[in-house]
């Protein structure tokens, strides 16, 4: 093979020989135009006797088919071994809220632009506190809905007066980015009714969850699709 750089392109067909000029675009290729083909130097010595080649080829063929058979058997065995597992459930990624330490990586490590992890509120566990440590900054100026008092960076928690002294807090999933700031506050001083979960309408179920590999608490697990959430509290469905 010549050492000069290839001038072949996707559909090129007329690049024959050394020093061959390129055919003009649109012209019909015809080998007769290519004078250099006939002038091309004999590239190599005459090939060996055909009989020898055939011999060597047949031996090679034999070895090849042997290897092919062995490989096929190997693949079959591996596939059979793996598909013979009893546990064949379709799995999804989920956070165990009891292992989560609210480090904040759920918001940053997901392959999606806005993380698939969002805060979930188990209302049945909530104390409906007036001073909610998941809602308010530490030492808030006022106990009201002012942005300067809120912990949530996106204002995703709605605070609603129910009856004195109880307030209901609900998460706006559209706004939540899964940073876990409210979860930290709630778990540290409150009932722990706020916690992070992988929301399966957004999760694209990556082969390996990139948050799971970054999670310092090893809180991510594969769970069967039939029960894809690890919810807290008595009011949680499926508990």
């Amino acid at each position, binding site marked *: 093979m010549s050492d000069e750089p290839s001038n072949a392109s996707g559909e090129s067909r007329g690049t024959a020989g050394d020093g061959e000029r390129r055919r003009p675009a649109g012209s019909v290729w015809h080998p007769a135009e290519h004078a250099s083909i006939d002038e091309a130097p004999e590239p190599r010595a005459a090939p060996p006797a055909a009989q020898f080649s055939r011999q060597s080829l047949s031996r090679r063929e034999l070895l090849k088919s042997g290897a092919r058979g062995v490989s096929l058997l190997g693949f079959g065995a591996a596939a059979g071994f793996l598909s013979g597992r009893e546990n064949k459930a379709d799995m999804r990624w989920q956070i165990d809220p009891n292992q989560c330490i609210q480090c904040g990586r759920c918001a940053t490590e997901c392959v999606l632009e806005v993380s698939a992890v969002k805060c979930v509120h188990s209302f049945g566990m*909530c104390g409906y506190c007036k001073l909610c440590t998941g809602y308010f900054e530490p030492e808030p100026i006022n106990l009201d809905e002012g942005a300067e008092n809120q912990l949530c960076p996106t204002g995703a928690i709605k605070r609603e007066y129910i009856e004195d002294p109880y307030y209901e807090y609900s998460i706006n999933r559209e706004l939540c980015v899964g940073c876990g700031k409210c979860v930290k506050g709630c778990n540290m001083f409150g009932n722990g009714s706020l916690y992070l979960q992988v929301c399966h309408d957004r999760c694209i179920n990556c082969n390996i969850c990139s948050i799971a590999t970054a999670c310092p608490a090893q809180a991510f697990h594969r769970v069967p699709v039939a029960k894809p959430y690890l919810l807290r509290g008595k009011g949680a469905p499926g508990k």
Partner: protein
Amino acid sequence: MSRASTGRQASCLSGQTGFQPVVSGGQPSRLSGKTGFQPVVSSNRIPFNIASAIAKATCIIPRLFPVLALLLLLAGMESALGIERFPPPDFSGHAVPQVVVPNPQPRTTDWLDVTVLAAGLAAASWLSLKQRSRRGMVILSLGSLAYFGFWRRGCVCAIGSIQNVALGIADPTYAVPLAVISLFTLPLVVALVWGRGFCAGVCPHGAIQDLVLVKPIKVPGWLDECLRVLPWIHLALAVLLAATGTLFLICKFDPFVGIFRLAGPRIILASGVALLVLSMFVGRPYCRYLCPYGALLGVAARFAKWRPTVTPNTCTQCRLCENTCPFGALNPPMPAKQGQERVASGRQRIVMLAVMVPLAALLFGWVGGKVGLAALPLHPDGKLASLVLLQERGGLIGTPPDELTAFRQHAADRLTVFSRATTLEARFLTLGRWIGLFFGLVLALKLARIFFPAGSLDYETDSGRCVSCTRCFSACPYELLRRGVPVTIPQEGGYRGNS
């Protein structure tokens, strides 16, 4: 592998300060006997000073037992019912809402994926061997790019399935989905019979590179050979890290999946774009120089029953196809040696293999063990153990890393952490050695093929490297004749007659 060698190799963790275990009273504890560790008070370095820790723990635990039990009970209640520092109020006129969580999307796509894959493989094989159509192949690869790439967002793919299979074999609790098993096996089985049609027509990673190729430059032979070792290194590391349950390397550094999802870490997106720009001039750089599945397919395709041929019937060695392959997968005719020379060459090859194979296998087996141990801190358990050890020795300054926060917060048992890390260390070492051994074998065979190439009679596609893109076909005058294009055959029968 013996415990002693583990201890010696474990110096990356336990040897940092040259810690020497002291067993109180010289009395071997009951637990340490169970782990197979011989408590010798000598200069032997023992990973994670298990012995002394167990000895300490065994004398503290009885005294603390009531307290521990209470704590455990509390922890159990906490995890089951939440903390409930403030009892939930009983409202008279307000209904407490239920937790609302969105349902997972139904996964009917699994079987659709397998069907599309099988159909794609059949079509690619038919297009490359029977139909011999470049246009058909381009259309097929566009379809695959749309379906597997942008619709399925590149996950899960055949390349990544290597890791699922490795993890599935190593970890009996992990179930590999059937779709992933078929994604792994089907292309390999097809490659054993019809060559790498998967790369040309079905793989979205291949398609996206192939479709942007405008002006291929030829990679020098020596550089090409050197770079073609990289997929094997990638494969070795990926299998090591996947089988130990550390991480999925191929997925983590997949350059194109970010483009398919139109999202992802910036560095990955940038490398994907850079690789695409490179693929405009270097044919399929990821497939040739990085893809671990391509390496496996290449081996399978070497044993293929049928493979794409440049000419549909006869080669007159007109050299028109010589430069048409952008992937360096077209071999020029190389007459095999004859007679005495051939016997000598055969002998040389056997001698070379007999020397090289054990040597390379041993060398890389050793290297593999080292790499395995170096990779231990990538595993969450290994990382935690080394961090705990580092903190206990006062090696940590500033705020503790989140791993340690989690460790303290859960009041996890340091003995469990260390014993887990020790078993893991042994596993990394053994697996690293085996994978290194295999890598050495591959390297030796690669070298043997470079020094003693198999002769080819005519211009032939290299069965291992050819991705069945069908570009070279249209350069062949016989192919043009077959398609009904009026051409005269250059040097008809001038060089060699019918083959």
